[in-house]
């Protein structure tokens, strides 16, 4: 399959990239890892007159803690996240996520920023970033602004990014002590989108009760879904089997999936429940061990 004709630009600086996006507006797409965009163009499900490749722009690929945030450069490849010592030691939910996105070859090119900016509710990072209460940095002609993750996904394949903005960084609040997270995904085979998947991040109080829980679901609706009722229910509860069962029931109810070859609505909602229970149990165990 061959994409429809387009022009390719490879700016050397962020400013130049933003200028190109401003010039071509809706006719331009940012090319990051290309692992979602190029298949879309090849299948001619999407089109663009201009691709602005951010691959040659320096300083967009990093994973570091700074000023109370974990900062992930927008063009950080999934494989870099997956193998980062900091992520493996301290951000289990992100290590879980990076390890189940597509397959290892795709992860060698796919980027964290692209996974979010594509606005696909079937992508895995949106749910984990919601569970982590992250925010994204969008850089445009007037400089950088931060967007809370809950305001970022505005619809199917659409985000709060303006046509001349680039997702340059993801900021995750450094979790307090006694925090843990997990991402659990059900997929038919490696590389498939999730039949259902759940992200959970919890922080425990000194007494062992759940102080904060972040829970979100992948591929459970037109946008990633925050299981707000489940989060609220868990506040102040001991993270025991009964609490996990009720919270995951609430999360299953929050799911609003479409039927497809991966399963019926009933099946997917039930899987959202089961996977939330597993993710919560894992997150709580990790928080207790932290």
């Amino acid at each position, binding site marked *: 399959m061959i994409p429809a004709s387009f022009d*390719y630009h490879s700016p050397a600086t962020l400013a130049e990239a933003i200028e190109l996006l401003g010039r071509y507006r809706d006719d331009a797409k940012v090319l990051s890892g290309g692992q979602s965009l190029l*298949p879309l163009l090849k299948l001619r499900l999407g089109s663009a007159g201009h*691709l602005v490749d951010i691959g040659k722009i320096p300083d967009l690929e990093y994973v570091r803690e700074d000023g109370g945030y974990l900062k992930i450069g927008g063009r950080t490849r999934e494989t870099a996240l997956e193998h980062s010592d900091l992520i493996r030691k301290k951000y289990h939910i992100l290590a879980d996520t990076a390890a189940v996105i597509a397959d290892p070859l795709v992860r060698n090119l796919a980027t964290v920023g692209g996974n979010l900016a594509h606005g696909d509710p079937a992508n895995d990072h949106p749910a984990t970033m919601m569970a982590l209460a992250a925010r994204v940095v969008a850089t445009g002609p007037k400089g950088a602004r931060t967007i809370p993750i809950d305001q970022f996904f505005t619809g199917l394949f659409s985000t709060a990014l303006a046509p001349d903005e680039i997702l340059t960084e993801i900021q995750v609040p450094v979790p307090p002590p006694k925090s843990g997270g997990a991402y659990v995904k059900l997929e038919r085979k490696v590389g498939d989108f999730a039949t259902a998947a759940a992200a959970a991040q919890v922080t425990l109080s000194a007494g062992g009760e759940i102080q904060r829980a972040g829970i979100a679901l992948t591929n459970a609706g037109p946008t990633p879904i925050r299981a707000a009722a489940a989060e609220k229910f868990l506040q102040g509860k001991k993270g025991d089997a009964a609490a996990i069962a009720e919270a995951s029931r609430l999360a299953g109810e929050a799911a609003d999936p479409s039927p497809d070859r991966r399963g019926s609505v009933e099946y997917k909602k039930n899987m959202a429940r089961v996977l939330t229970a597993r993710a919560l149990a894992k997150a709580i165990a990790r928080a207790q061990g932290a």
Partner: protein
Amino acid sequence: MARHKIHVTVNGAAAEAEVESRLLLVHFLRENLRLTGTHIGCDTTHCGACTVLLDGVPVKSCTVLAVQADGRQVMTVEGLEKDGKLHPIQEGFFQEHGLQCGYCTPGMMMTSSALLASNPDPTEADIRRAISGNLCRCTGYVNIVKSVQHAAAAARTAK
């Protein structure tokens, strides 16, 4: 229609061409350079038949633009053999019957040669994880894993 002059080093040799923006790396390799060892399988980023090394990293060349390879190193299956001597991974596939129809083999060998370059002594789980983006339609995974293990052992003995 936008065209770009690109300079790519393919299997150690310099290649120059003027390409359309939309030309995919796999088509550049197969059609411009006539390196048909890299196969096109699913053409939808699933099967890994088109795997090549881009600056040493295995990627699916059906999902990379040729122009993105400008100034970079590409290695295809044709680059594995050196001076008439098979690469250990090729020898492994030969000795352990790591192929049936052979369609996935170039991609499998590129992915596993990159694995061995970074992890000379992989476990079976390491191998299976590494090749999880390469599909074998003959389902010959048992012998593929053995082939990679054979290559790893041969490389260790050679040292």
